[in-house]
């Protein structure tokens, strides 16, 4: 008996020794780095498991990365002109950047979100908000091109945006800054009670994804910071964090941080939708641009809309409630089941989690603590699900792994903290390098997260990378979250500020990817579908060049009869019908950019020659063995000359 006991003890101690040894080697950087490298290594020719769409923040764009490799695949131009792809420079995409303020070729791109079907990311479109001049863009994932941008009127600082409901019924655009609605000239000190916050519900056409502002909820003049749709049981509700419930308008860092609790606004959008469908709300004059890119004409059109439907929340009793939440809450995140609403009070030491079930019960029992501008405020204790006690400093954002865990970023203490839903206990924490904002788990914004990795997006990197001037790259970090403990696998640099990201399995997108545009489907008004139809047409002082490209020449490549002061439009059609064979074209002295034309596509740029001479143009994309020979000339004569219009290709030179 004694022997058995002894040997058992011996065995146990051996086991303990082994496990502790194992632990020791895990924290040892040598062993760690080799296994981490293997986990992010994607061999040549192999594909990453996930696509990550990381917003470019103040670059205005959306970048596409592979996970786990962290490789940058593409920068998709959205709100900023991009000379690389002629986006916002060519005649076809200039209308995309039109707004009620005119042409605005920049924005601050913040929160991408992937469309969903039945609560699961479906890989069809990415929506992203322009924060500065309020806009929402839709990116089509068959082409990775921005195909629609809608401006949001009555809004300012479109920040609590662009989050998509679980069947992509709506993408939401909540204003960060409250403003006079309609805008008017008034003293800023009269903010309180006079400024309003618009929460816009933009419907998404289930077939084409076309956006249309269904209604705007005109809320009290708080700052609406972030938002998330309910899901599962809370589908039909939307939650918005607020700060500045003080309604201060100056020295906000102090004056907007006075209240111990701000609110999460809970909006029953189904109820309001029903009200609106029955003719509720009022049409109000508003001016906003709706820009749609048509894949058949390869061109965008911008329409200026003149009115928008607004809803006063008091008109729809029971549709809007305030949940008190400490303290200047930033992130507003709903767990996959839809039960928990996490309000990250960025000035609070604790994390506050509300219960959807309790909220419904409080509403049912009419347990109202008071009201703000007539909107009922529920009791904090009545809706509270639990508190994660002192998990870190400066909580910002939370995502979920679908296995009952939540991951919250802490900006001030610069870390990701893993905790358990329901028990509210902290399970693990990992440092970030440095000052993390958002984090992203692929599908972490849906009912079905792919809880294998989390990407943390950092605001500064200091010593983390080689110095590149006063500003160093911003960066993302990849953690393996498949085990109980998180493991840092990789740092990778990002463009602009990696504000937020959305991710999904590559297999959702890969099979639907468009390889080329069929020439026979090209309905561009200036398309030239074969070389025989190329021509140059003068119309007063405007010259239209109908040009084609194919490996390795332009047709025509000799053009005469253009004059100083003309407006010369190059309408260039790429006749290729092979995957990944774009041609470029650039013209000396053109005040726009090159064109980069995909197979089967037509694009146009404007050249206004100001000097006489014979000026070359050439292909800018190394297209073939004879790319360097892909060039041509335009002869520019004086404005008053009568050089006849002439064009040719391959004519024998005497």
């Amino acid at each position, binding site marked *: 008996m004694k022997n058995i006991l002894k040997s058992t003890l011996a065995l146990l101690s051996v086991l303990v020794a082994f496990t502790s040894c194992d632990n020791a080697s895990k924290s040892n950087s040598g062993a760690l780095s080799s296994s981490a490298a293997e986990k992010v290594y994607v061999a040549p020719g192999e594909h990453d498991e996930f696509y990550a769409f990381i917003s470019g923040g103040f670059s205005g764009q959306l970048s596409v990365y592979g996970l786990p490799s962290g490789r940058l695949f593409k920068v998709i131009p959205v709100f900023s002109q991009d000379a690389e792809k002629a986006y916002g420079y060519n005649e076809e995409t200039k209308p995309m950047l039109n707004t009620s303020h005119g042409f605005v070729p920049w924005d601050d791109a913040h929160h991408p979100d992937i469309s969903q079907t039945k609560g699961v990311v479906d890989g069809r479109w990415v929506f992203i908000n322009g924060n500065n001049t309020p806009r929402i863009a839709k990116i089509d994932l068959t082409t990775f091109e921005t195909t629609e941008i809608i401006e949001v009127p009555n809004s300012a600082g479109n920040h609590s945006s662009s989050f998509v409901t679980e069947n992509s019924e709506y993408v939401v655009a909540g204003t960060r800054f409250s403003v006079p609605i309609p805008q008017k000239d008034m003293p800023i000190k009269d903010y309180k009670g006079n400024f309003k916050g618009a929460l816009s519900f933009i419907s998404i056409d289930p077939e084409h994804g076309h956006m249309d502002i269904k209604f705007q909820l005109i809320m009290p003049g708080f700052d609406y910071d972030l938002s998330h749709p309910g899901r599962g049981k809370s589908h039909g509700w939307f939650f918005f964090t607020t700060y500045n419930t003080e309604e201060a308008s100056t020295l906000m860092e102090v004056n907007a941080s006075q209240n111990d609790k701000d609110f999460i606004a809970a909006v029953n959008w189904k109820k309001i939708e029903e009200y609106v469908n029955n003719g509720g709300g009022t049409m109000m004059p508003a001016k906003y641009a709706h820009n749609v890119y048509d894949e058949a004409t390869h061109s965008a059109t911008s329409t200026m809309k003149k009115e928008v439907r607004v809803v006063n929340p008091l008109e729809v009793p029971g549709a809007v409630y305030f949940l008190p939440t400490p303290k200047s809450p930033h992130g507003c995140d709903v767990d996959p089941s839809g039960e928990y609403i996490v309000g990250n009070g960025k000035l609070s030491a604790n994390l506050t989690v509300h219960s959807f079930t309790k909220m419904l019960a409080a509403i049912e029992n009419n347990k109202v603590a008071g009201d703000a501008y007539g909107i009922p405020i529920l009791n904090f204790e009545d809706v509270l699900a639990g508190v994660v006690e002192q998990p870190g400093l400066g909580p910002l954002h939370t995502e979920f792994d679908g296995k009952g865990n939540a991951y919250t970023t802490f900006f001030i203490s610069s870390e990701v903290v893993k905790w358990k839903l329901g028990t509210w206990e902290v399970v693990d924490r990992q440092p970030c390098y440095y000052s993390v904002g958002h984090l992203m788990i692929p599908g972490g914004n849906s009912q079905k997260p792919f809880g294998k990795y989390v990407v943390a997006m950092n605001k500064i990197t200091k010593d983390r990378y080689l110095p590149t001037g006063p500003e160093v790259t911003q960066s993302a970090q990849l953690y393996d979250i498949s085990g109980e403990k998180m493991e840092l696998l990789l740092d990778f640099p990002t463009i602009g500020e990696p504000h937020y990201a959305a991710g999904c399995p590559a297999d959702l997108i890969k099979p639907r990817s468009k390889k*080329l545009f069929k020439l026979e489907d090209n309905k561009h008004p200036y398309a030239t579908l074969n070389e025989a139809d190329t021509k140059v047409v003068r119309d007063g002082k405007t010259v239209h060049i109908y040009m084609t490209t194919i*490996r390795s020449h332009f047709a025509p490549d000799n053009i005469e009869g253009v004059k100083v002061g003309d407006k010369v439009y190059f309408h260039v059609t790429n006749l*290729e*019908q*092979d995957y990944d064979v774009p041609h470029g074209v650039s013209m000396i002295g053109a005040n726009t950019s090159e064109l980069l034309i995909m197979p089967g596509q037509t694009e146009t740029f404007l050249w206004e020659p100001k000097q006489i001479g014979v000026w070359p143009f050439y292909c800018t994309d190394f297209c073939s063995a*004879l790319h360097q020979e892909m060039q041509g000339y335009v002869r520019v004569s004086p404005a008053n000359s009568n050089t006849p219009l002439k064009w040719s290709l391959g004519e024998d030179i005497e």
Partner: protein
Amino acid sequence: MKRSNIIMFIAALLPLGLFLFPLWKITLEAPQYPTPLGMYIHINDFSDVHPHDIKNINLMNHYVGMKYIPEAIPEFKIFPIGIIITTVIGLIIAFKGNYKWFLFWFVLMIVLSSAGLYDFYLWEHDYGHDLDPKAIMKFTNPDGSVMGFQPPLFGSKDILNFKAHSYPRLGALFLGVGIAASFIAYLIGKKNNKKSVTM
């Protein structure tokens, strides 16, 4: 109807499969074409294996001065008529003829198919060797002669950076089985004939 005649009947019909399935396939592989370029040769048409393959073959071939693969060749008119006529002859034989005629049809088909193959070879040779004198790239064989770019009639062959494969497809199988079946019909017919004579 006798068994041999039934087989002959089927044999005569089988070549009609050429109207349903491609006769031949030529595939071009290269590292920058992870999905190889390919074309099917039908009894009356060329077609793409993947959309736009022929266009892309033409685009590449123009570097060495090869002509564009034509939309149609005269053979596309002659071959279908030939197949229909031989099928009609085969059917008449199957209904009316005695087994010796089966052998005649078998030999006729062998001769015509060989002629077709030879014609195809000639076309290929011309296509691969009659190059534009202003071709962008000119290549010579080790012996100094001008390099041709003729795909193989049957089998695989390296042509510059490409590996070309040329193999029969289902249509050719129908034709081949049809021809073979006529010979079997002949053998069975002959055997039965002997039997009936001795009995």
